[in-house]
């Protein structure tokens, strides 16, 4: 089972690297939207610094959301998902492997680029470690919750649009505590982000696996 998990993880990562366009598009979207914000709402430097945590989180969240509907879609279309479900890795393992691969391939690059954007948006340098920590704890939760939504809308009409309606409200708590963690010198929001990550780790694969089973029936 562990070998099947690692094989699936390696396959998804290999796919992500060889079809680099998806990751690059997500990153490009992240950079562009953040740039738009800095032109659109915060020409003044002091204002920009105050808005930076929120802008960074919202853009990261939207970039991840855009990439989420590909999580199972491509495999469902070419039949690979059906084969995976027949294999000896249980559906929960499939969800976990795909989420981990997706986080490594999509969220990690966002994390690497976030300091650059933070500089562009005038975020004070001493807040940078907090931003990285908050993103490190928050983005896996976003991917896990998004996986539930992505599994639910498999085969639905206008799935992408529906996906945003389903999971954006569930992203609100992560956004609230994520922004608070960057804005204040206080460890409580980080602890909340950690708690939400643990809860999502425990529950989201279960729900997503149940949804995958329904989709394959």
């Amino acid at each position, binding site marked *: 089972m562990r070998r099947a998990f690692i094989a699936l993880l390696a396959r998804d990562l290999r796919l992500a690297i060889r079809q680099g366009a998806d990751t690059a598009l997500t990153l490009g979207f992240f950079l562009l939207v953040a740039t738009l914000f800095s032109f659109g709402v915060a020409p003044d430097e002091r204002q920009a610094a105050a808005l930076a945590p929120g802008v960074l989180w919202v853009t990261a969240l939207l970039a991840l959301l855009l990439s989420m509907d590909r999580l199972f879609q491509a495999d469902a279309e070419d039949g690979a998902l059906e084969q995976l479900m027949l294999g000896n890795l249980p559906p929960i393992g499939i969800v976990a492997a795909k989420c981990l691969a997706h986080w490594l391939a999509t969220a990690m690059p966002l994390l690497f680029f976030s300091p650059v954007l933070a500089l562009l948006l005038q975020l004070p340098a001493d807040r940078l470690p907090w931003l990285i920590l908050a993103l490190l704890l928050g983005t896996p939760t976003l991917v896990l919750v998004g996986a539930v939504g992505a599994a*639910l809308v498999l*085969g639905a*009409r206008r799935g992408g649009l529906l996906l945003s309606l389903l999971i954006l409200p569930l992203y609100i708590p992560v956004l609230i505590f994520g922004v608070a963690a960057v804005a204040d010198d206080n460890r409580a929001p980080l602890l909340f982000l950690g708690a939400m990550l643990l809860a999502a780790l425990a529950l989201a694969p279960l729900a997503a696996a149940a949804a995958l089973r329904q989709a394959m029936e």
Partner: protein
Amino acid sequence: MASLGFANPTRFHRLSARLTPPVGWAAAAFLLVGFGWGFILSPPDYQQHDSVRIMYLHVPSAWMAMFVYVFIALMSAMYLIWRHALADILARAAAPVGATFTALALITGSLWGKPMWGAWWVWDARLTSVLVLLFLYLGHIALSNAFDDRERGARTAAILALVGIVNIPIIKFSVDWWATLHQPSSVLRLDGPTIHATMLVPLLLSAVGFTLYFFFVLLLRARSEIIERKIHARRLRQSEG
């Protein structure tokens, strides 16, 4: 399972035909007395004056918003476990009603908030979590209609309803866990209600009225859904000859 007998849509249809009128009349009676007492006879608050009367609409709506969601989640669990056709019909029938209660709670709260808090809306934990509840309802409705295969939509929406149940305790306890602008509970407390009987009784009366009204509308909607399915099945048979 005593309820298994009613899981048969035909039997439910016959039972509900008898049940619907009395439930409707009882709802009307409770709402009339509760609202009449609350809006006209009950005393004004010493601080909020007459604005307090919106409570008789706001609090039962908010209770029902949560109650209906729990009801949908229960029906969804029953549907996923036993595949009762009736559980799906009831969950589908309840969702728009619950969404309306949630919207009503948000609107009345905001109308009360403007004179009392000085703002239509604040992003405190209670208000935000109820807004999330509204989106969960809308997502549930959208998802259950998003598939060409009706059953697929029912099962998928059922999973969403079960996922969203985590929001219910967050709504209930948000006023205790965080320092919210929304006041903490004054009726369902361990040390008894802190609200005077002249206001508590009409509040509870209208809450009973809201609950009966929900079941009245639920029965009506479920019945029309069953009839719709029968028509659909008959058309299919006819077209096949």
